[in-house]
């Protein structure tokens, strides 16, 4: 513990991109994401005494930012789409599969990713779909699949008890995101 550097500028250099990316994906505003990175690092510096050293500094910082994002959405819940944490996963499962677990919907052909990746409108739809996820699902998806935080670290930050629960949650998140993209983007022409 005594060997750990208590230097927020080092944390900024090492984890600034990860924190900023996480904030950008959740709040979708450059100035706001920048503020959040700054506030997170200051809060971390002020509360460093509470850092147990059981997780990595990065996980600890992300945990602080997670709370900042929750606070932000609480304060501005009338301005955004994603706020009530309404989870319709069960309905989506019932809509997608019959009682024997077979698909009862058709999945359309999405073509190749190369075309959509440079399309700004696609990204607006993608962000809208991400914003529709319950907060814990959005966090999980971003931290695990975008930022590559390990399963163990994700469980710690998001208070998920087992890797198995994490895997199930990720699978449901992918199912929801896929469904949203299909309806909002691919099925529009």
């Amino acid at each position, binding site marked *: 513990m005594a060997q750990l550097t208590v230097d927020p500028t080092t944390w900024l250099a090492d984890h600034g991109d990860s924190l900023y990316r996480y904030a950008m994906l959740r709040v979708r505003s450059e100035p706001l994401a920048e503020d959040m990175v700054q506030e997170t690092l200051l809060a971390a510096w002020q509360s460093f005494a509470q850092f147990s050293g059981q997780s990595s500094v990065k996980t600890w910082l992300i945990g602080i930012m997670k709370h900042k994002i929750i606070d932000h959405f609480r304060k501005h819940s009338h301005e955004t789409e994603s706020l009530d944490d309404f989870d319709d996963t069960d309905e989506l499962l019932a809509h997608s599969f019959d009682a024997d677990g077979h698909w009862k919907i058709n999945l359309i052909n999405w073509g*190749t990713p190369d075309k959509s*990746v440079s399309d700004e409108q696609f990204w607006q739809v993608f962000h809208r779909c991400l914003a529709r996820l319950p907060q814990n699902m959005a966090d999980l998806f971003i931290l695990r*699949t975008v930022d590559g935080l390990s399963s163990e670290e994700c469980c710690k930050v998001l208070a998920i008890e087992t890797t198995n629960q994490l895997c199930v949650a990720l699978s449901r998140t992918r199912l929801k995101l896929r469904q949203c993209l299909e309806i909002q983007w691919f099925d529009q022409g």
Partner: protein
Amino acid sequence: MPTCKKMTDLLSDSLEMKLPWPKILAMKLHLMVCKTCRRYRQHLMFMQKMLDGRVKAILLPEAARLRIKEKLKGETKE
């Protein structure tokens, strides 16, 4: 053989970890006979590829980094 519903979990898990071979085999057999699950797999890979290509390119802009650095130095001075 796993159901399609179970397949969505296995396909998602396969992006997370190396699955034991009996699960891989069961998954491959299912994919051979199920067009919809093959498409679901394509969609998962599509999403992952899009994210790799675009979202990972989101970086803290240099000007913002400098502003934050200055602020941190100011605020954390003893």
